[in-house]
Structure formats: C-alpha cells, structure tokens
C-alpha cells in the first residue's frame, strides 16, 4: 500500500503572532484554496478542512471549501478533517460530498468524527448527553446511504427514510469514509469492528501515543472478520516543514502556542505552552511533525514503521501563521519530504514482500 502525505487546515482567522494583521474571513477562504492549489501542484496526496463553528475559523462548512478546492486542483484528494457527524444530517453530508466528488472527478473523502469541540451540538439542536448514540446512528446511516439507493432506514434522531432516492451518487460509485479517532479505546474498537479506515488524531505526546489504539483497532477488526492488516490508518498531527530545524521551530512555536492558548484550556482558561515544552514535543521521539525536511522525513518513516501507516496529514498554521510561511512549508513538504518518504516506504515494502 502506498504512503500518502497531505495537509489540513481549520482555516484559522488569527493574527500571525510574528507580526501580521488579523486576516479577513474573505482572505482566509482564499488562502485555504491557495494552500490546496499549491499542495496539488507540488504533488501532495491529500488536502483536508476541519469543521469548527466559531468566528476564529472559516471552516464551518468544509464541503463548500472542498468544492472550491476541487475547481482549483487536479489530482489531490479532498477530505473533511473532520466532519462532525454527530450533529449533521447524514443525508445532507452525503449530498454535499457526492457533489464535491463529481466536481473533483472522484477525489472526495469524508473523515467522520465525534468532534472535539462541542459548539455544533446546541447549534443544530442536539444534546451532548446523546454523544455516543448520535455518532453510532449517524455513521450507520451514512454507510447505508453509501451502499444503497433507494434506501429504507429508521432511527432515533431523524425522520425515517422510505424508499428514499438520495442523489447524486458518487463519481466512482463510492466515497472513502474514514473515522476520526482521538485515542479512546472504545472508538478504536468500534471503528475496527466496522472495518472502516481509521484517522488518528495526535495533538501532543510521544510518537508511541497511539500504539494501544492501533492494537485494539486491529484486534477488533480481526475479531469481526475484517482483513485487519489491509485496513488503512492515517495519522493527523500538527507540524511545520522549515528550511532548518531551528527555523521550523521558530516559525511554528509562536502560532502553535497561540492556538493552544485559544483552544486547549486548563482550569477553564487558556494556558501558554512554554517554549521548552514545545521543543520537547518537537524532539525525535515526540509526535509533532516539525523540523527540517530531513527531520520530518525521519519522523514520517518512524510513524510508518510504528503503526503500519498508510497516510499522514499534517496540520500547519494552527493558531495563525502568515500565508507566505504556510505556503513555503507546503512546498517543502511536497518537493523535499514526500518524494523521499514515498521512495523509502516503497523500498521497505519491496523488502518485506
């Protein structure tokens, strides 16, 4: 199986802490499409947009941004990262992604997630108390829509469907549906049981953070009768490819620390990630994909070996980064990192075959 390398964004609307101005939402949607276009040009495999319902992000409607990206790109796969499925209507999700799939000639994908932010639940009238039941039911419906048309279905959280014609169908008949997993054993196990590809999210921690998650996932998949080793796994983590080790850290730290301050609260308040803690997270055995091209190559190969990964999606620019610096990192990832990683993984698989 090939190793795919991509990027994702939340479409942050935040001041570049190194000295920029606050970009307008209009600017940021265009920036996001420009990122997708460059990622495509430099040969990256995946472009993802995360769903957040707050005014410091433009990504509340990933399918629309991905549809725009479809028009600006040729080859790159276009995925939500993630679709907060628990607070969505799966019928509408399917319609939007199938449309994007037609626009992009079969490049659309969905990563279905439970959502690490809770804003969308009250916004669409859902109760957080139903967190698990909502996700289970809506994933079930989305998978059925993918397989059957017309569809008859009933559940707890939406009106039943009777011989419903859900259109359009996907370009190639189907759309890859991954499940976003943050690391809880239960989500790894239920994803494995369904035999669905798993997109692991890693915010902070050692590279080995998800070892148990992957073990539980594969064991549950095998037990349910799926070919566990054939199931794709992706890691989604933050990072930045710089010109040198030091430059990468100096560029990424201020925005990442600002992003953590705004999004990762302790005692109900933001806390500033100390530089020393960031540097520790950037070290050789820690999870962040930040550094010189060679450092990022080594880490991606490390991840591949550790988990048998098929895909890595790097989130750059979290917390607000100038578009120029963001684009430079995308270019380095596509031209200096990805070709080496693909070649190395290819020769590894040749040896093991």
């Amino acid at each position: 199986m090939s190793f795919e390398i991509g990027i994702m964004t939340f479409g942050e609307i935040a001041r570049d802490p190194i000295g920029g101005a606050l970009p307008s939402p209009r600017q940021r949607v265009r920036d996001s499409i420009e990122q997708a276009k460059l990622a495509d040009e430099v040969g990256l495999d995946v472009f993802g947009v995360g769903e957040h319902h707050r005014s410091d992000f433009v990504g509340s409607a990933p399918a629309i941004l991905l549809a725009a990206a479809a028009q600006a790109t040729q080859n790159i796969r276009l995925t939500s990262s993630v679709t907060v499925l628990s607070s969505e209507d799966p019928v509408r999700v399917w319609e939007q992604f199938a449309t994007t799939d037609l626009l992009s000639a079969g490049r659309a994908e969905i990563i279905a997630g439970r959502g690490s932010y809770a804003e969308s639940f009250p916004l669409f009238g859902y109760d957080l108390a139903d967190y698990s039941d909502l996700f289970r039911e809506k994933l079930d419906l989305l998978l059925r829509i993918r397989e059957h048309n017309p569809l008859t279905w009933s559940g707890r959280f939406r009106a039943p469907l009777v011989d419903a014609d859900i259109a359009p169908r996907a370009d190639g008949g189907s759309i890859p549906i991954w499940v976003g997993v943050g690391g809880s054993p239960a989500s790894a196990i239920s994803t494995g049981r369904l035999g669905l590809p798993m997109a692991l999210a890693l915010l902070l921690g050692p590279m080995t953070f998800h070892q148990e998650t992957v073990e539980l996932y594969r064991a549950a998949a095998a037990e349910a009768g799926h070919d566990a080793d054939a199931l794709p796994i992706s890691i989604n983590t933050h990072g930045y490819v710089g010109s040198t080790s030091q430059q990468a850290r100096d560029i990424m730290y201020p925005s990442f620390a600002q992003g953590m301050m705004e999004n990762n609260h302790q005692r109900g308040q933001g806390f500033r990630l100390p530089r020393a803690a960031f540097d520790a997270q950037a070290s050789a055995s820690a999870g962040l994909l930040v550094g010189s091209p060679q450092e990022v190559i080594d880490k991606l190969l490390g991840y591949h070996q550790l988990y048998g990964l098929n895909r890595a999606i790097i989130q750059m620019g979290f917390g607000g980064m100038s578009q120029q610096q963001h684009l430079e990192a995308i270019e380095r990832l596509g031209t200096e990192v990805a070709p080496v990683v693909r070649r190395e993984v290819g020769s590894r698989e040749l040896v093991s075959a």
Partner: protein
Amino acid sequence: MTLRVVVINGSPHEKSKTLGLVDVILQTLSTILPITVDRIDVYRLGAAFGLATEREEVGAELEAVLQRAEHADLLIAAVPVYRGSYPGLFKHFFDLIDQYALANKLVLLAATGGGDHHALVLEHALRPLFGFFQAMTIPVGIFASAGDFDGTVLLNPRVYGRIEVALTDVADLLRSRATGAMAWAATSADGGRPPES
C-alpha cells in the same frame, strides 16, 4: 449453593458507565458460579434516607434496604468518581451501615472515571472505607475510564481481562461464601434475579 450478590450503585443516573461496568462483572461472575443479584441505587433511596443521621432513626423500609446490604455474600461497591472520590450519598449509605456488619464481608471494588488519572480512587478512597469496616476486599479492584465505553457499553478488552483476573483470584473463596439456596439457582438467562417471594 448460590452466591447472593448485592450491588451498591453510587451513580445517580438511570443508565451509567458504572452500571455498564457492573453488568460485565456480573456476567463474568455468573460464569464462575450461580448468583442472584440485588441492586441498591443510593440515589433512589429518597429524601428520608438523605436526612437520616442515625441508624435508629430510619424507617422500616430503609432499615430493610440496609439489612440487604449487610446480609450479602458479596458486596459490589460501584461508583463514579465525583470530585476526586466516591459520591457523597454513597458514603452516606455506609455511614448508616452497622459498624460490625461488614466484618470479613467479601467486597469487590469498582469505579469509573473521566480518565485513567482517577484509577487510584479504588485504593485511596474505596479500600480505606472498607478497611474501617474490616471487610475482606478482593485484592484486584476494577477501574474503567470514559474512553473504554461506547455510551454505557464497556468495549475495552483489557478491562474485561482485569475483571476475569479479579474474580478468578478468589473463585474458591466465592464458592465457599455462597449461602443462597440452590433451588432457584439463577443463570444469566433470567438476569440473575431471585424469584418473586
């Protein structure tokens, strides 16, 4: 003989991860020996229970509930972690239990929490409480984190394994402590409940 199990449930919720964990413990237990199950939900015992400060004050109904716990072959103490420990009403229940009624009583400790950092609630909060009563707590306690559950259904096989270990350790002891009649030996098929009397 049948093991008469009484669950003291410290969760205030109708459906809970704590009860999801208890379900798995009871299923495993019923594969070792016949059991009957009686559950006391401390949050459903009413206002009079909450206001009682002395055993002598409690009414006949509550007195009967307390005696059910005191006469169990095996107590399962099952709690969610609230503010770093067992919930207040759970402790209040044991404040009304006779000081000597649980001496040498088999007690299985079980708890659920938001994360693994709560796991020592078993050793630092629950076990000392039963230490006071000189109860015989089973050496291996059972803890599960929120992430081990899909809703209220326990999925993590490692926790299943831990339950197996905890109960297998004391399988002989459980059999020797069983005092229930064999006549209506319960199986998991009938939910392990005693017949209507």
